[in-house]
């Protein structure tokens, strides 16, 4: 265990990751007619990781610089080719691990409304959780890549089998697009391994910090530049950043509600997390060279995403594009290369995870009743469904970044942090992204008006208000949106050391 600083060793991360896998095995053993047992197992297999993750969260030492709850066990050994089960968490990954466990638990009751629900659905859902959690805890690039691919497959089937009318198209688009990114990642990974002979992410960071990559230049670009762009594109597809975002709306619109929740809530965060864990600190010099370009991409995502969202007439598509816009803040904040910006970006990932997931749940509620999502065909839904209106208001205003709610803290930190950037051109970027802030209010309020307010469309007058099950899914997310808006230090304190550590690597590259 000499490759990286570790506070304590524990197998708890392995348990968190593989309990869903055990659950999946159990689900597969139950006869497919016995749905209640299957659901029960799924609840247990998603609830236990949440409990364990919460234990880890509050047991985490926020003053320690390095990784915690780590584990390192040799996995594959072929001569000098060594792959480890090397896991551990720090302030950057821990909040996302926790977010994953909560969102997967939320997705289970939300799955009730999925048509053609079957045993395989729950099994795949649990497998998906394994893949996602694995990515977040991996400190070995090979392991990281394996989990990255593990996650891809269940998602493909979950969209492709249980999705909307055009599910096959959307699923294939999602799969191929992400796979294209994975291939780039694999190429970079192999190149780096051949260069320095290690898969250990902490070691790679150390090499990057010392400028130790010695690979050859190619076509006038240095080795690290190639590696940087390959990795960046791989993760930018996932974020998704303009112009790699078009798989997202299709995947969202076709995916069933709980899958949209997971897609927006966590899968997009894998992109942002990948950047700060497995791209920027590994090739910090290349990153700082291109930071402004990344900031520009972020701002384009913010403003362009908001404009396109404003132009949508499909409720879910609008929320999907709002994700593009909101995730642009993540890229902008990271590119600014300031502590504020980086913290804002890290916080934005978590907060977008809760608020966008809540928005998709809200859309799912009305879709289950109306079986369409045409914004222009609704009207006055607040009258038969007052509680639904109240909860939707919270969800959408959280997404809008209303001060007092979580999204504001992260957006404000990002904007303020970008303003502070040593590169003064970022001040212009912040000014432009302010336009995105206004447009966000525009599309959200316009959507709320068209769906909920005004005269009631007679078709909807008998709609049942939001049910207990739906509230059960929505309530924890809305609670987090408000709670973290008032007490942001419950995340920021945890992220503090991790971000500072990261910044020390990135700024050395300057």
């Amino acid at each position: 265990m000499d490759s990286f600083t570790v506070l304590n060793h524990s197998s708890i991360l392995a348990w968190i990751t593989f309990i869903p896998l055990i659950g999946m095995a159990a689900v597969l053993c139950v006869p497919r007619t016995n749905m209640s047992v299957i659901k029960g197992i799924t609840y247990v297999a998603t609830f236990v990781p949440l409990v364990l993750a919460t234990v880890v969260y509050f047991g985490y030492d926020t003053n320690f610089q390095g990784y915690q709850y780590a584990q390192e066990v040799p996995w594959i050994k072929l001569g000098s080719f060594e792959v480890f089960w090397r896991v551990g968490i720090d302030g950057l990954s821990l909040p996302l691990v926790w977010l994953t466990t909560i969102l997967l638990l939320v997705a289970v009751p939300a799955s009730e409304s999925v048509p053609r629900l079957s045993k395989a659905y729950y099994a795949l859902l649990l497998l998906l959780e394994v893949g996602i959690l694995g990515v977040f805890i991996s400190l070995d690039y090979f392991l990281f890549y394996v989990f990255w691919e593990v996650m891809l497959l269940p998602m493909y089937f979950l969209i492709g089998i249980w999705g909307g009318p055009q599910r096959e198209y959307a699923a294939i688009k999602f799969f191929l697009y992400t796979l294209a990114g994975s291939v780039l990642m694999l190429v970079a990974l192999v190149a780096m391994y051949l260069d320095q002979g290690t898969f250990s992410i902490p070691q790679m960071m150390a090499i990057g910090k010392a400028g130790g990559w010695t690979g050859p230049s190619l076509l006038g670009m240095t080795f690290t530049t190639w590696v940087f762009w390959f990795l960046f594109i791989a993760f930018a597809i996932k974020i998704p950043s303009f112009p790699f975002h078009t798989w997202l709306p299709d995947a969202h619109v076709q995916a069933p509600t709980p899958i949209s929740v997971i897609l927006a809530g966590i899968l997009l965060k894998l992109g942002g997390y990948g950047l700060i864990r497995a791209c920027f600190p590994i090739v910090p010099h290349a990153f700082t060279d291109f930071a402004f370009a990344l900031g520009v991409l972020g701002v384009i995502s913010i403003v362009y995403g908001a404009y396109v969202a404003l132009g949508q007439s499909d409720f879910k598509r609008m929320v999907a594009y709002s994700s593009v816009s909101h995730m642009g803040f993540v890229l902008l904040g990271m590119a600014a290369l300031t502590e504020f910006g980086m913290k804002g970006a890290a916080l934005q990932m978590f907060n977008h995870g809760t608020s966008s997931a809540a928005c998709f749940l809200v859309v799912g509620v009305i879709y289950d009743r109306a079986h369409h999502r045409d914004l222009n065909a609704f009207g006055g839904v607040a009258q038969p469904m007052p509680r639904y209106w109240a909860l939707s208001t919270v969800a959408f205003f959280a997404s809008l970044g209303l001060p007092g709610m979580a999204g504001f803290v992260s957006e404000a930190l990002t904007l303020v942090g970008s303003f502070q950037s040593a590169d003064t051109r970022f001040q212009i970027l912040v000014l432009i992204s302010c336009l995105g802030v206004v447009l966000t209010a525009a599309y959200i309020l316009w959507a709320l008006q068209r769906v909920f307010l005004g005269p009631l469309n007679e078709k909807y007058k008998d709609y049942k208000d939001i049910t207990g099950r739906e509230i059960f899914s929505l309530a924890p997310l809305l609670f987090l949106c408000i709670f973290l808006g008032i007490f942001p230090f419950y995340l920021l304190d945890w992220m503090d050391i991790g971000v500072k550590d990261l910044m020390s690597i990135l700024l050395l590259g300057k």
Partner: protein
Amino acid sequence: MPDTSHLFTSLPTWQWQLLLAVPLIPLVGYVIQIFWGKHLPRQGDWLLTAGMGVVMCITVYMFFIARGHSSGEGYFIAESLRDGFGWDWLHRARPQAEGLSLPTGLMYDGLGAAMLAVVGVVSFFVHLFSTGYMKGDRRYHIFFANISLFTFAMLGLVLSDNILFLFIFWELMGLMSYLLIGHFSQDPTSHRIRQAAAACKKAFMTTRVGDTCLLFGMAMFYFLLPEHFNELVEQGKIHADKIGGTFNFTLLWQRASMVVEANGGAYPIWMTTAGLFIFGGTVGKSAQFPLHIWLPDAMEGPTPVSAMIHAATMVAAGVFLLGRTFPLMSPTVLAVVAAVGGFTALFAATIGCTVFDIKGVLAYSTISQLGFMVASIGCGALGLVAGLFHMVTHAFFKSCLFLSAGSVIHGCHHEQDMRKMGGLRKKMPITFACMLICSLSISGMPLFAGFYSKDRIIAAAFGGLSLNFNGGTFAATVFLPLAACLTTFYMFRLIFMTFFGEPRDHHVDEHAHESPWNMTVAISVLATLGLFGGYFWLMHPTSPLGAHGTWFTEMVDWRTMYPGVDLTRTNLAGMAASVPHAAAHGGSALHEAGAAAEHLAHFYHGFNPHVTAMIASLAVLLIGIALAVQMYLRRKWNPAKVTGALGEGYVWVANKYYIDEAVQATVIRGTIGLAAIQRWIDENIVDGLVLTVGRIGKALGFFSAWFDKHVVDGLVNLVGGLTQAFGSIARLFQSGRIQQYVSFAVAGGILVAAFHLLT
């Protein structure tokens, strides 16, 4: 950095706790109300109203505490963080963490005390009024919950000690304003359900534009101020330690003024830019031109909401913000502030003269009055105090006017068109009396509250002009008296059309009745404040600066509002080149400021703007009333003929200068058009590229399949076929017959022999 801690007052912990309770009571009330309100007796209105009663008592009590601390000589400003009462918003478990931290606490000073008491009093009476006015509403308990949360936000805003928290509450008020304007947008019995839905969105969107400006301005101050400051420290122009960014008001004031002083009184350009961005927040929230368009539409909300949010409190928050950020404003910014405010005051007043909706008149009147306050602050330090005082008096009389209008509307069965009213004074005597008092007050009738504040504002404008002639002070000087004249005219037009003359609509008149006690009590108390509220101001109208022993000027004095800041060296010095610094160095800042102010007062005596202002304001008052009497009471001049004579100009004004239409045609259509274009680009170009790549891949796949089948496999087949063909030929020779093999051998032998023989 000079030590200014001795300028701060320390409050005991129990007082801080009391102040903290002020916003928390309505917050707790909200939580109870939203979850259980429907099941409480009377849907919980008594609970929230009683809670607000407690809040009112605390705020008034604390007002007197603050009053006790203000002697007219020293400073009164207290920060809870200095008394160990506060928290760090961004850090808790790691207080030692550097960089990202935001210590947050309460701030209580004279301005805060006055504003807090105003909000507490007005909120309580609006709650009380609502228990009558909103009776029978379908979403009664939600209404109370929302208005309670709004009160929480407003009280929190007043108590915030840093601009970020001010902004948080600011936006939260925006949300509550959105929900309350849209109150009827979910009520199927309302006939204006569609308009309410549009109005609430418009209000939030328009203010959001200003809010984003404010956020950007805050970010500029947070980062550029320390950058500039530290630069000056390095150059040795400021003798202090290097600093980090801050949102804290007192630190911002001190550091900004140190930077300005180190620059020799000149404001750096970035500070002007940042100041303009911050003023953008005021323009949005306080409905100044050109972002005023949301406020008239906001009248779709229930009348108590209009009284509280859109007259007394939330819209005044923009003015409050100017008061809180005044030392950050460069003279250029102030000139813009004065120009925008002055223009808005006159512009809105002209529209107010043409509106027939009783609430519409009051809405434009509010915009106009906010313009007065803003313009006044733009005219410099004296105007600042006058503008803030107008904010207080306006809160009383305008909330009373709105509630009285609500009482009229309630009595007339939700009729809002003044053309259908008339002669109501006999049927609604209390309402009439209250409305008359407050109309006189807003018109600036001597001895009424509005007189003191409005007269001050006009004096400040005249004084500002004489000290420093610029576009802003000129606009204020020209526009404000005209606007004051129109104010009187439209208010008396309202009074005469509503309460005098003969009933114009039989149906309305038949239903008209006085409102129940809870409504009349509320308007009576507010009318009393609208009458006597002016006595918080000084009683010596001839000495503009030297007055002592009065309430407001001692609590809110530009010399002592900003500890450690000498406005004569920054804002005021920039505006009055003729005012030398009283004492070059040494002596307390207050003393210096006081001396400079004395000098200023002396300067004033040469041309006493106050006397001129009083003459002017009385003159415009009389003209306004006379016009209204002629047109609407005695009906000597037929209004229809007058408007006809005004021709196109009248049409232009009556259509609100077509600004809504212009915004609709440009900003809104432009945005939606851009959105549609970008959607098209996204679907056809960005995604088109992706699909093209996909299609190319697919085509390559098909081509490969074809190639594989026909070329690659064809080659294989060819090889196979050739082999086979060769085999079939060779097979002919493999007959198995010995004779044939022998004959081949012989033939071969002959061939070989022949070859040898021939060569």
